[in-house]
C-alpha cells in the first residue's frame, strides 16, 4: 500500500498512477523527493506567485522573494514593465538584490559591482579592459551574454506570477475558469497593501497545502466561533476543484439560524455561556453577495483568503523538507472608507500567526510532521466525501485534497497504492 515509486509513464498500465485516498507519509519527509520538487514543480510547469502588483507601484520598485528555494526578485522598470529575475549574479553567483523591498534604478552586485538594469541586462563591469592594458576580460566578452536569468512573468488581476517553464499553459488557463471567476470577485478593484506577517512552521509545505484544502477542520480545530457562539457562516458551502487548484466557499447563514447541526454535533466544548466581552471584534460589513469565507488555493504555494472583511494572500516558502515560512500579505481596497479600513485592521486579530481562528494551523502542521517522520511506510486516510475529486456542495469533504495528490503524483511522476503497482511496500524506481 505504501510503496512509492518513480515512473516515466505513470498511467501506462491503465490504472490511476496514485491512490489519492492513501498518501504515503514519505511525501512529507523524503529529502530526495523534496530536491526533485525544486526541479519538477517550482522550476517546472507551474506559475509561482511572486507578489501583488500593488507592492510595485512606482518605476524602480523591487521585491525579493523565492520560487521554491530559488531566490528571485521582481522589478518594475522605468517603462512600467514587470520583470522577474533569479537573484544570482551572472559572474560568480552572489545575491544581487539584498533587500526585501525598495526602489533602485539599477541592481549592483556588491561583490564585484557588476551592474544590471531592472530587466536583468548587464550594463557594466569594472575594469573590463584591465588596468594599463593588463588584465581585464577577453576581447570577445559581451555584456549581453551575461544577463541575470529571467523568469517569464504574467499577471492576473494584480497578482504577479513567474515561471521557469516554456511549456506551462498561459496563466488564465493554468488558473482555471472557476479560479479566475473568484479572483475577478476578490480583486475587483485596486488594492492597498496593509501589512505582512511571517510564520516559521516546522513542517513540510504540503502538510499546509492539505490544510488549506480541508474544510473539515474549519470548525473542529478552530474553536473560537463555537466557543463564543459567534458563527457567521452557516457551514453550508462547497468545494470547487480545478485540478491542483481549488476553492472553499462558506455561505452566509440565515440570520435566524443558530449554530448549525454540523457544528452542534461535532463541537464538544460548544457553550452558550461564554460571550465576547467586546463583540466589536466581529463587527463586519457585507462585501460579497453570498459567502462569508473563501479559501482559494493556487498550486503550488499560493492561498487567497477572504474571511469576513479580512483579505490576504498567503505564500508558502519552503525552507527544507520539514520547514517553511508562511508569508501573509494583508490588503484592503484603495477606496475603503476609514470605518471599513479599521474593521479590516481589527479583524486581523482573527487571522495570521496570532489569529484567534487561525493560529492552530501552524500547530496542526507540526503535530503531523512530528508524528509521520519516524515511519515512511504509513499512509493517511482521505475518504471524506467519497473517493473522487469532483466538485462537492458540502464542507464535509476531502475532495480537493485528493485532487491535490492526484495532480502532485502526476507532476512528480510518482506512483503509489495497490491499484498502481500492487506494491509490496518498498519504494523503488520502475
Amino acid at each position: 500500500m505504501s510503496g512509492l515509486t518513480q515512473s516515466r509513464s505513470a498511467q501506462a498500465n491503465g490504472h490511476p498512477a496514485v491512490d489519492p485516498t492513501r498518501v504515503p507519509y514519505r511525501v512529507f519527509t523524503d529529502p530526495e523527493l523534496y530536491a526533485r520538487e525544486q526541479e519538477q514543480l517550482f522550476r517546472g510547469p507551474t506559475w509561482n506567485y511572486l507578489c501583488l502588483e500593488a507592492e510595485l507601484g512606482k518605476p524602480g520598485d523591487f521585491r525579493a522573494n523565492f520560487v521554491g528555494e530559488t531566490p528571485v526578485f521582481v522589478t518594475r522598470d522605468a517603462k512600467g514593465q514587470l520583470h522577474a529575475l533569479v537573484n544570482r549574479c551572472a559572474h560568480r553567483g552572489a545575491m544581487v538584490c539584498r533587500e526585501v523591498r525598495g526602489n533602485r534604478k539599477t541592481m549592483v552586485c556588491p561583490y564585484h559591482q557588476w551592474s544590471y538594469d531592472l530587466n536583468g541586462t548587464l550594463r557594466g563591469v569594472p575594469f573590463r579592459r584591465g588596468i594599463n592594458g593588463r588584465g581585464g576580460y577577453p576581447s570577445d566578452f559581451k555584456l549581453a551574454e551575461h544577463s541575470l536569468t529571467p523568469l517569464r512573468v504574467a499577471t492576473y488581476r494584480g497578482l504577479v506570477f513567474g515561471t521557469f517553464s516554456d511549456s506551462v499553459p498561459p496563466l488564465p488557463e493554468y488558473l482555471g475558469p472557476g479560479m479566475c471567476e473568484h479572483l475577478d470577485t476578490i480583486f475587483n478593484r485596486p488594492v492597498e497593501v496593509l501589512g505582512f506577517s511571517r510564520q516559521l512552521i516546522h513542517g513540510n509545505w504540503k502538510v499546509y497545502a492539505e490544510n488549506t484544502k480541508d474544510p473539515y477542520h474549519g470548525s473542529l480545530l478552530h474553536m473560537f466561533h463555537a466557543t463564543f457562539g459567534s458563527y457567521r457562516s452557516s457551514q453550508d458551502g462547497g468545494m470547487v476543484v480545478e485540478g491542483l487548484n481549488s476553492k472553499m466557499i462558506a455561505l452566509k447563514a440565515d440570520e435566524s439560524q443558530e449554530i448549525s447541526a454540523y457544528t452542534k454535533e461535532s463541537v464538544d466544548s460548544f457553550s452558550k455561556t461564554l460571550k465576547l466581552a467586546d463583540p466589536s471584534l466581529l463587527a463586519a460589513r457585507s462585501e460579497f453577495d453570498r459567502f462569508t469565507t473563501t479559501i482559494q488555493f493556487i498550486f503550488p504555494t499560493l492561498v487567497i483568503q477572504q474571511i469576513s472583511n479580512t483579505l490576504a494572500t498567503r505564500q508558502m516558502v519552503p525552507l527544507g523538507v520539514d520547514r517553511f515560512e508562511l508569508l501573509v500579505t494583508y490588503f484592503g481596497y484603495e477606496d475603503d472608507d476609514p470605518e471599513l479600513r479599521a474593521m479590516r485592521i481589527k479583524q486581523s486579530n482573527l487571522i495570521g500567526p496570532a489569529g484567534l481562528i487561525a493560529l492552530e494551523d501552524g500547530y496542526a502542521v507540526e503535530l503531523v510532521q512530528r508524528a509521520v517522520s519516524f515511519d515512511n511506510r504509513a499512509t493517511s486516510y482521505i475518504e471524506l466525501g467519497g473517493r473522487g475529486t469532483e466538485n462537492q456542495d458540502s464542507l464535509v469533504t476531502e475532495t480537493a485534497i485528493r485532487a491535490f495528490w492526484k495532480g502532485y503524483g502526476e507532476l512528480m511522476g510518482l506512483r503509489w497504492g495497490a491499484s498502481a503497482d500492487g506494491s509490496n511496500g518498498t519504494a523503488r524506481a520502475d
Partner: protein
Amino acid sequence: MEATELRAQIEELTDAYVECLDSNRLEEWPDFFTDRCIYKVIPYENVALGMPIPLMYGDSRGMLRDRVVAHRNANFFAPHLYRHLVGRVRIVGRDNGTISTRANYAVFRTMLDPSNYGRSELFSVGVYQDVIVFEDGKPRFKEKVVVVDTSQIPTLLVTPL
C-alpha cells in the same frame, strides 16, 4: 510625583506585568490596562513600512479578556512557558499625568509538549512603547505597543507579550 517615586512605580508596574504573564496568571493580565486602552503587537516589518496590520490588537479591557478566554477555552497550541527579560525602562515623555516609556524586551519560550519538553528558545525580541496613566493612584497601561523585531513568528503567538 517625584521622579524617583515615579520611576519606582513604573518599574514595579513593568515587573508585575511580566511576572503575571510568566507565571501564567493570564486572567489578571487585562487589569494592567485602563478600560479604554490600546494593546497592540505589531511586527517591525509593518512599522518600518508605515503599515497598520498588527498581530494582536485590543482597544478595550474587554477585548483583552476575550483573548484570555479564547486562550483558555478555544485555542489549541503546544503548552509552553514564557520568561521575559525587560531592560531598563526609559521615561521619554511626561505630560499631564501621562507618562510615555520605552523598554527593550526579550522573551524566551520553553516548550512543555511531548516532542520538545524543556526546550527553550529565544521567541521574541523587541521594544515596549507604553503610555501609562494613574487611576486611583495605581499606574495602568493606557497604551502598550509591542514592536516585535522577530517578525518571523516561531510557529504561533497565542500568549500575550
